[in-house]
């Protein structure tokens, strides 16, 4: 979860000024890691993920407590908040942004899948506690009429997609887990908006069918 030793020695004075005292350490780390990724450090991406994951998990736990039951917590909002906290708005280079959101989308996906698994286990296995109907939906429904998403099944399908067509999977990751627009996705992946649109439409249809949708 820590940055590698070499990265740690970067002078701290270059980091964007940060007023949120408590989160200054991870913010410094993340900015540093992003720079290292830019400089071609192959380990840096692996170090970035846990940092982002931890931040997102914390944010999600906090927000879940604050929201009213039945409200939804937009993953996008969390991811963007994590970005502001960890990177700040000083660094706007697209390349860094793309790296960060790539990691954040992955972290978000893991969080959602872990949570869905765990809730599923609670429901089936350790089931002393009676589970109300309201909780059954937790896995990924949102109340505003969107289709419910089984995150565990989606994760499995995405794995299959990644094995065969990584680019398409990355479009899904950024669009769905980081909430990127078509244009942003295009920019982040160095594709044209038209091809993002095509990949996205095919991916959605394919995933829907893989998940057994009617």
């Amino acid at each position, binding site marked *: 979860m820590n940055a590698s030793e070499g990265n740690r020695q970067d002078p701290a004075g270059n980091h964007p000024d940060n007023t949120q005292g408590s989160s200054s350490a991870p913010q410094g780390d993340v900015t540093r890691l992003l720079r290292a990724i830019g400089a071609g450090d192959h380990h840096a991406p692996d170090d970035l993920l846990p940092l982002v994951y931890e931040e997102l*998990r914390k944010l999600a736990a906090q927000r879940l407590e604050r929201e009213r039951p039945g409200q939804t917590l937009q993953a996008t909002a969390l991811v963007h908040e994590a970005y502001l906290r960890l990177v700040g708005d000083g660094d706007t280079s697209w390349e860094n942004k793309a790296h960060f959101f790539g990691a954040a989308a992955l972290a978000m996906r893991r969080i959602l899948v872990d949570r869905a698994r765990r809730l599923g286990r609670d429901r089936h296995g350790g089931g*002393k506690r009676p589970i109300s109907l309201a909780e059954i939906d937790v896995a990924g429904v949102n109340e505003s009429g969107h289709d419910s998403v089984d995150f565990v099944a989606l994760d499995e399908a995405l794995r299959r997609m990644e094995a065969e067509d990584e680019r398409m999977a990355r479009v899904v990751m950024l669009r769905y887990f980081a909430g990127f627009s078509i244009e942003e996705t295009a920019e982040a992946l160095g594709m044209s908006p038209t091809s993002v649109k095509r990949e996205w439409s095919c991916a959605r249809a394919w995933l829907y069918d893989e998940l057994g949708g009617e």
Partner: protein
Amino acid sequence: MNERNSASSSLARVKEVFLAIVELKDVARDAEIARLCGDDLELRDKVVRMLGRHSVEGGFLEAPAAILVPATGTTSGLEPMPERIGSYAIIDLLGEGGFGSVYRARQEVPIRREVALKVIRRGMDSRSVIARFEAERQTLALLSHPNIARVIDAGQTDDGRPYFVMELIEGVPITRYCDQERLPIERRLRLFMDVCRAVEHAHQKGVIHRDIKPSNVMVQATGGRVDAKVIDFGIAKAIEPMGAGSGTEARLTMEAQLLGTPDYMSPEQVDSELGDVDTRVDIYALGTLLYELLAGVTPLGIARRSGSSLPATMRLIREVDPPRPSQRVANLGDEAAEIAALRATDPRRHRAAVTGDLDWIVMRAIDKERTRRYDSVGSLVADVQRHLANEPILAARPGPWYVTRKFVRRHRVAVASSVLLFISLMVGLGATLLALSRAVSAEAQATLARDDLATVNDFLVEDLLTMARPERGGHKTTIVEAMGNAITLVDRRFATQPILAARVRAVMASAYRALGLRDVALATVEPAERILLEQLGPDDPLTLDVTLIRSSALSDLGRLEEAESVLRDADERARAAFGLDHPATLSVRSHLGELLQKMGKHGEADPILIDAIERLRRLRPDDDASVLTPALSLVASLGAQKRYAEAIPYSEVVLRRAKARHSASDPITLAAANNHATMLTNLGRFAEAEETYRALLATLTESMPEGHWQIALARHSLGVSIERQEGRRAEATELLRTSATDLLAALGPDHAFTERVFGVLANHLRAIQSPEEVAALEQAVGLRLRVAKPDERDSAVRAVRSYLVRAAAVRNESTPVALGNLEAYCQAIVDRGEAPGANALSNLGWACLDRSDSVRAERLLLRADQLARTSSDPDLELLREIADRLATLYDMAGNREEVRKWGAKGSGGR
């Protein structure tokens, strides 16, 4: 899931085929699929399924990933679960919160039982937390109440976090329980009283909870018993070290709490300068809980305001006064029905149930100033108890019109509706009379002492209500009789009190206005204004108020220029006497703005209205009638300028505030609803408009006699909003038909509304291909021909033309036959001796000229000329117009002599 499928058809192949055909149309698509897939049926099936999905709009993965907040607010599943904590075996996770996690655990010694174990999150000094808990332990041991869950033990985890062990409650938070079981208000109150008694018990033992909120008030349903259990007693104090003291730890604790459930924190908890924490923080939190149980939302709704900063949240808690529960309920918008349903009721009844006693009980408990709260939980419970027993509560303040309202409510059925209408208007205006007294100058106040108000009160309540009493034959009294009586009564009763008499006359004039008796209204108010000018002078706010009523009466009668000069004069006087920022001045300016907008002088009206609204908002609450009225005019003005999109934010707010503050049948609310719905219709938001019109119509039919023009107009508008919705055209026919006939009956043929609704009806009938179309059109065209204004000549001609086309198409009539129908129609107007007959003939003649039927045109115009000349009160402008038309006709025919003759009579000859 379909793993086998994907295994056999590679994604690459699927993608290739899918992308090749996705843009193609049906037939080409089928062919291409067949070609590309060949005999790979699996691939083909997969692609076809995907296409089927693709063609559906929206849906799957469209919205970015989201987490649904669990209804328990507990199992977010984001924290790993330990196996043991201290001597307790962890069984499973019960919940997670801002303070940490709660587990179900097993205790082995001294007895085997299941307990709840709450681990406080990192960041606390465990030793001092536990020390403080130990210090409190003796006191906590004294707590023994069926609605309190005991705290048994405290300790420290291996990684140094403090934890508490308490009685295990298998329940859900009280708010959730009530919603889940759809408990009606009364049962919620009974449950709430149990909670209060538990807190009261603790207070008596010297324990303050400090953190009462739904997640600390659980409801446990076991074996047919339903018990509320207050949990966590003593914990807040243990982890809130220095009471309201300073220090980083205290601040962090408070911030954590603010992050958690700030809604339940009292002002003194967020600001230690307001004093030490005492039992009244629990009273505040209980009041907040009651608010949420009643209204479905918390008073400040902090948790729902996303992204508020900590200082902003603290300010909110310290300074912002929440709306009363009933006001909040009235403003729930889309959620209203849902929240009411959770209370086994509908929005209207929900609001009614909360209004009054419960409003006052809650507001007293959550007063920012703690000395104004209940002094003990006991007195709070007692008031709830009184409310349930229908006894007067301590916190309530019944208004002066209580008795009257009760009377009207009791006799709603028995009292004849027309008289009732008059009475309720008078009663409503009585309140206006009271309101007037607040703005009245010192001299006037001296003459309008409390006794005088009582006299007026008696007059309204006794004399007028007696008149309406069915057992005294009141139901046979007509409006006119009732009003005649009322005037005589005023003069008799207030013979020695001229100012009071003037005030009552003013009120009655307003009642007449509201009933559409415009002449009577003016005649009633004029003497009142004279009296006040004499007694109080022109610069008195009361005089100004009565002047305003006179200007409105003038405006009702269409005497707009007179009204304008009255208002401009009053404006000047008011500004000189009181300055711009005075309610009296602003009232005058609101009226002036309204009048100017009515006259079509929008450029002048809008700035005056906006300025008046802004200034009034600084003087009066936003939902005060004095603010809403000019805002309504502004909406009307923007609407008249077709600036609907700009108008809609205003109309929406005005409607919402009007509904919150005034009854649904209040003229302000009615006008606001109508304006808003009109804007919605014009913006094409027909479904929303329909909803608003339906509500409006329901209110109108309840409070007005059937056949009233406002009902007819609302019905018409409702019809329009339905007609414009996809596939619902046929539903509108009946509404449009009855409203047109009703409006014709109520407003007569010369009102602009009448003609418009027949035009709409005709269009509608055409759209549904009804043969009745032509009859409706004939009616509409006939009405159009009556209009007297020369500048509408073109539209009358167009109306005739479109009628002729439609008549020919539908009835298979030739033009002369159809024109003959119209001629007969106009003749019928003339035969009935109605004034616009000459105008109608002239317009039809002009239309015939346009159709090159000069023979008929000549006949009609000559007949019009003759009629207009022989009228008892000849309309010179009309005569000139007819002459002009004849001159044109003869000019076209080359008849020079007639051209000269008629030209001399026409506008050129002046």
